[in-house]
């Protein structure tokens, strides 16, 4: 086994384990912390694939901005374990059955698919920050601008939604 493969296995184990713990831990704050670890290990996967730009953006956007937002909301609502409502049994059963069905379909698809064998590597530079920046600002200029408009609209919408309404008199 090569070093890279061992690294991949360790990172995958961390990712899957923390994703499971995110879903199954009772306390929402613990879930958020586990999700941060999960996001960092996914950034490690990006680094392993040599996508440096995306790894940095992923850490900044997901582990930074989104998780701070989630933690802030959890603290704002002051949630703890006691607030967790008891689920009806048939809801849980339905969730587990539909989850098993989805898994069955996906596993069946991937077992029946043909294996991919050929890897041709030309050595061309396609994922450095320089190349990505050129692609973003030449070929994908219009979607890039629209993404900024989307973020602006989302910001205004968030402020409007979370503002306290004045009592009418």
């Amino acid at each position: 086994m090569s070093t890279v493969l061992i690294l991949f296995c360790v990172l995958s184990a961390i990712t899957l384990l923390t994703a499971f713990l995110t879903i199954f831990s009772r306390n929402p704050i613990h879930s958020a912390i586990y999700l941060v670890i999960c996001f960092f290990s996914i950034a490690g996967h990006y680094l392993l694939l040599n996508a440096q730009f995306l790894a940095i953006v992923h850490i900044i956007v997901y582990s930074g901005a989104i998780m701070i937002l989630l933690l802030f909301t959890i603290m704002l609502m002051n949630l703890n374990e006691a607030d967790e409502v008891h689920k009806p049994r048939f809801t849980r059963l339905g969730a587990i059955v539909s989850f098993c069905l989805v898994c069955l379909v996906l596993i069946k698809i991937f077992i029946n698919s043909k294996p991919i064998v050929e890897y041709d590597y030309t050595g061309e530079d396609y994922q450095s920050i320089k190349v990505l920046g050129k692609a973003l600002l030449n070929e994908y200029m219009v979607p890039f601008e629209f993404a900024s408009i989307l973020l602006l609209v989302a910001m205004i919408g968030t402020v409007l939604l979370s503002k306290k309404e004045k009592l009418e008199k």
Partner: protein
Amino acid sequence: MNNILTQIGIENYIFLCVTLFCIGIFGVLYRRNAIIVFMSIEIMLNAVNLLFVAFSTYHQDTQGQVFVFFSMAVAAAEVAVGLAILVSIFRNIGSISIDNLKNLKG
């Protein structure tokens, strides 16, 4: 530098991403806490992003990574608006269990 996928294999990445996506689906179906449902959606988005990057490396194409960049921007906007909606739901109802959101049921 040699291509990383010759040592790892694209199948491993496919299996990892499918498992991660299934965990996300299970979280959405199983948990009633709206914030955990949100986190599960983030896990699913991340699984798809990781698969995009893996196939971008496999085809040696920039477009997959550009798409991941845009999907991250959309995810950030989605989380901001969704959490604002959750906060206003919490203010009106007093809990964020998605079982309580059945006013439309009549």
